[in-house]
C-alpha cells in the first residue's frame, strides 16, 4: 500500500492486525502506551478481543490464555512492565505457546526514566524468567521494520511455538516514518494442539509441569532442539560496507542507524568502517560476526546500555579481535559525532596501519 507517515506505536498494532492478531491484553506505560490505546481502538473493529489488564502480570497470563485457545495474541510494555511479565515468559515458553510481546525499552533500573534505552537486552535476550528457555527476539531499527518484524514475529511464534519479542528502544515506537503496509493476511485457524472448547480439542492439554526428572529433561531437550534449529535458520542481520572494513561497528535498533551515518562520515575521513546490525538478537548472528573477524581488525559495539549486546559480540568473536564498547544510557541516543570521536580516539591509530593478522589478534 502507498506509504503513509505513521508513528511506530500505532504502526505496530496495525501490523499485528494485518498479521491476523485478534487479541490484545495490556497495561499502559510510557513509552508504549499508544500501543494499548490503538489496540483498544482497533481490536473491537476487527472482531477481536481487547482487555485492559489490571497489571502486566495479568496481561501476560491473558496472553497465555489467548494463546492456549489458539488465537494470535499479543501484549506490549516497557521495562518495569516487562520485568513483571517475566513469570509469564517462562510459562509461555514452557507450555510452548506462540505469542508476540513488544518491548519499547525505556531507561532503568527501577522506575528509571522514560527516554529510550536498550537496557532490557539481558532480561529479554538472555531470559529474565526461570528455567532453560529462550525468547526469539527481533530488533527493528525503523518504523517500516517494526511493521515487517511484528508480522514476522507472529509467523515465527507459530513456527517455533514460542514467545517472540519485538525489542525496540522507545524512540522507534515514538517516531514517525513512512510505512508501506502489506495486504492483510487471513486469520489462521486454531492450531491442532489448542484448547478451544470443542469435541475435537477435548483431549488437548496446555501445561508446563513435568515432575518426573526424565520427563522434564526430555521436554527441556525438545525445547533446546527447537532453539538449535532457530539458531541455524533464523539469524538475521544487515551489513553495510564491511567488505573492506578495518573497523566494524555493531549496534541494533536506532543505534544501528546512527552507526550507518558514522560509517559514512568515517569513510569520508579515511577510516574504513563498516556496520553490522543484528536484526535478530536471539538467535544472534554469531556466525556472521565470527566470519567478519577473519578480515576485520577491530569491532566497536555501540549500544544504549552500559554493555549488554557487547557480551554476545565478544562470544562471537571468541577473543580473536579486540571488541571495544561505547554506550549512552538514561534516555540519550549516541550521536554520530561522539561515536566518531570514540572510534578515532581509541582505534584510529591502529586502523590506519595496514591490517596484520596474528594468531592472537593484535
Amino acid at each position, binding site marked *: *500500500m*502507498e506509504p*503513509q*507517515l505513521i508513528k511506530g506505536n500505532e504502526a505496530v498494532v*496495525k501490523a499485528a*492486525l494485518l498479521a491476523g492478531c*485478534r*487479541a490484545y*491484553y495490556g497495561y499502559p506505560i*510510557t*513509552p508504549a502506551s499508544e500501543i494499548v490505546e490503538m489496540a483498544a481502538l*482497533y481490536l473491537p473493529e*476487527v*472482531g477481536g*478481543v481487547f*482487555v485492559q*489488564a*489490571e497489571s502486566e502480570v*495479568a*496481561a501476560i*497470563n*491473558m*496472553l*497465555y*490464555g*489467548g494463546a492456549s*485457545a489458539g488465537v494470535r*495474541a499479543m501484549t506490549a510494555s516497557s521495562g518495569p512492565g516487562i520485568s513483571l511479565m517475566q513469570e*509469564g515468559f517462562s*510459562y509461555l515458553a514452557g507450555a510452548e505457546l506462540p505469542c508476540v510481546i513488544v518491548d519499547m525499552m525505556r531507561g532503568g533500573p527501577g522506575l528509571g*526514566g522514560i*527516554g529510550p534505552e536498550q537496557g532490557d537486552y539481558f532480561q529479554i535476550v538472555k531470559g529474565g524468567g526461570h528455567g532453560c528457555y529462550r525468547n526469539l527476539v527481533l530488533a527493528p531499527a525503523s518504523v517500516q521494520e517494526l511493521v515487517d518484524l511484528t508480522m514476522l514475529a507472529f509467523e515465527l511464534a507459530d513456527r517455533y511455538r514460542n514467545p517472540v519479542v519485538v525489542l525496540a528502544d*522507545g*524512540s522507534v515506537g*515514538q*517516531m*514517525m*516514518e*513512512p510505512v508501506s*503496509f502489506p*495486504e*492483510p493476511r487471513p486469520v489462521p485457524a486454531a492450531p491442532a494442539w489448542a*484448547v478451544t*472448547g*470443542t*469435541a475435537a480439542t*477435548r*483431549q488437548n*492439554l*496446555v*501445561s*508446563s509441569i513435568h515432575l*518426573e526428572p526424565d520427563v522434564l529433561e526430555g521436554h527441556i531437550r525438545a525445547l533446546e532442539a527447537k532453539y538449535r534449529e532457530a539458531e541455524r535458520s533464523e539469524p538475521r542481520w544487515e551489513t553495510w560496507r564491511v567488505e573492506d572494513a578495518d573497523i566494524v561497528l555493531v549496534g541494533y535498533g*536506532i543505534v544501528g*542507524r*546512527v552507526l*550507518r551515518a558514522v560509517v559514512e562520515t568515517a569513510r569520508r575521513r579515511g577510516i574504513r568502517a563498516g556496520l553490522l546490525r543484528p536484526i535478530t538478537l536471539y538467535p544472534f548472528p554469531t556466525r556472521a560476526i565470527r566470519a567478519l573477524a577473519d578480515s576485520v581488525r577491530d569491532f566497536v559495539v555501540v549500544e544504549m546500555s552500559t554493555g549488554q549486546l557487547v557480551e554476545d559480540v565478544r562470544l562471537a568473536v571468541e577473543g580473536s579481535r579486540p571488541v571495544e564498547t561505547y554506550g549512552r544510557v538514561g534516555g540519550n*541516543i549516541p550521536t*554520530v*559525532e561522539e561515536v566518531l570521536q570514540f572510534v578515532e580516539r581509541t582505534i584510529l591509530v591502529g586502523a590506519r596501519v595496514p591490517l596484520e593478522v596474528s594468531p592472537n589478534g593484535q
Partner: protein
Amino acid sequence: MASDTPAMAVVHGRSPIFYRRFDRKDDDQHQTHYCPGCGHGIVTKLLAEAIDTLGIQDRTILVSPVGCSVFGYEYLDVGNIQVAHGRGPAVATAVKRSRPDSIVVSYQGDGDLAAIGTAEIVHAANRGETVSVIFVNNAIYGMTGGQMAPTTLLGEKTTTTPRGRDPAVHGYPLKVCELLATLEAPVFLERVALGSNKQIMATGRALRRALENQVHGLGFSLVEVLSPCPTIWGLDPAEAQTFVRETMTRTFPLGNFRDRSASAVPQRLAVTVPDLGELPRILGLGPASGVDGASDTVAPASPVPTADHRIVVAGFGGQGVLLLGEFLAEAGLSAGYHVSWLPSYGPQMRSGTSNCHVRISAVPIDSPVVSRPNVLIALNEPALRKFLPSMEPGGLVLYNADSVPVDCAGSGAGITPIASTAIADRLGSAKVGNVVMLGALLEATGMLPDSALERALHRLVTRERWYELDRAALQAGRAAVRRMTAAPAEPSLAQDPAMG
C-alpha cells in the same frame, strides 16, 4: 441426582467426565493423587457430575491452578489448561473472550486465589467475566506442606505460624465471598462446605448453578467450598469433616452472597467480523482524506537530489512543536522525499520543553537523530540557547521573537527573528504560531513545494476552522520573511501595522 441419594455414594460413583484410567499420571493410574478424605477429590467429582448433568463436556475448559489441584487435568476428560500460581482468572478471561462458546472453569485453592492471585480474581470478578470459579478453601497451603493461608483461622498453628495465627501479626482470615460481594458485576457468589453429606449435596447444586449461569451467558460466578485437608490438619477424614462443619463455618458462614441469576442478562456481545478486504479501510491504511475530502493524489515527485534537511524544532510544550515537525515530515513525504520525525517525549510534553527532529532527504535516512541540525526552529529563548551550539555553520535559525539576544547574534548561524506567536495572536489564535513559522521556513528556504504543504494540511487538519486559520498563518509567515528580506534593517515584524 435424586434428593434421597446418599451424597457420598454419588461422589463415589464415577461420572463419565472422569477418565477411566488416569493416563496423564506417572504412577498409579487408577488412584487420584489426593490424600484420603481430601476435599479436592470430592469437589473434582462434583464438578464432573455437574458437567455431565449439563451436557457440556465438549465445551468445558478446565483451568488448573498451582496447589494440590494442579493435576486437575489428569482426571477430567475436558479441555485442559494448567496455569501459573494465582493467574487462573486472567487466563480464563482470555480463553472465554476469544472462545465465547466454551465453558471456562477456573479451579483454585486459597493460596492461589486469595493470596498470590488476589488481583486477578478481584478484577476478573469486577469485569464480570463470564467464567465459573471454584474456590477450594482449606485454610492452609496443602501442596507446599502446611504454611499459613490468607484463610487460616485465628489461633491456628501452621508451619509459618508456629505460635498460632495472631491477628495483630498475621491479620484476619480473608473472606473472599464477602469481599467480592462488594463488587457490582458478579452474578453468583455462594459459600458451601464439605462438612456433611447434606453440605456436599448443596455443594454439588452450587457448582451446577455456577456452570449453568455460564451456559446462559450470565456473567461471573464463584463458589467457595470449605474443604478438608486431613493430612496437613493432622486429623483423620471424619475429624476433618467435623472441623469443616463445626469450626470453619464459624469464621466462614455458609450461604449465598449474591444471586442475580434470574435478573442478569446474557453478557454475550454481538461481534461482527469484517471481511479481510475491509481491514485496510478500518485501519486507515487507504488514501487519507482531510477536511474537504480531498484525497492524497500523488504529486509528480521531483525531489531535489542533494536535499538533506536536518531540522530541529524546539519550544515549550503546547506551542505545537511536534505538530510543526509532523507538517514538515508529511509535506516532505508527499514531495517525494525520505522523511523521519523523532519527538522528545514524556513528562516534558506536559510542562517544560518539547522538541522534535525532522529529516527530509533525497536519499534513505540513516539516522533519524539530528545531532547537527542545518535548520533550527526555536519557539522560545531556552530552545534557541540549547540548540544553537549544535548548529551546522551556515545553517538557518528561525527564532520566535522580535529580536535576537545580543550574545547569540554572532553565533555563525544566521538567526532570523520571526515573532510567530504575536503574528498568530493577531490572526486569532496563538496556537497557529507554529504554522506561521512553517510559512516562514518555506519562504526562507523553498525547501518544499506549496502543493506538498497543502496536502499535509489536508491530511493533518481535520477541522474546517483550523484549516482556514492554518492557511492564513502559512501566508502570514511567508509575508513576514518577504518583508524581512525587503527591509533587512526592520527590527520588528510584529509592529508592522500591515499584520493587523
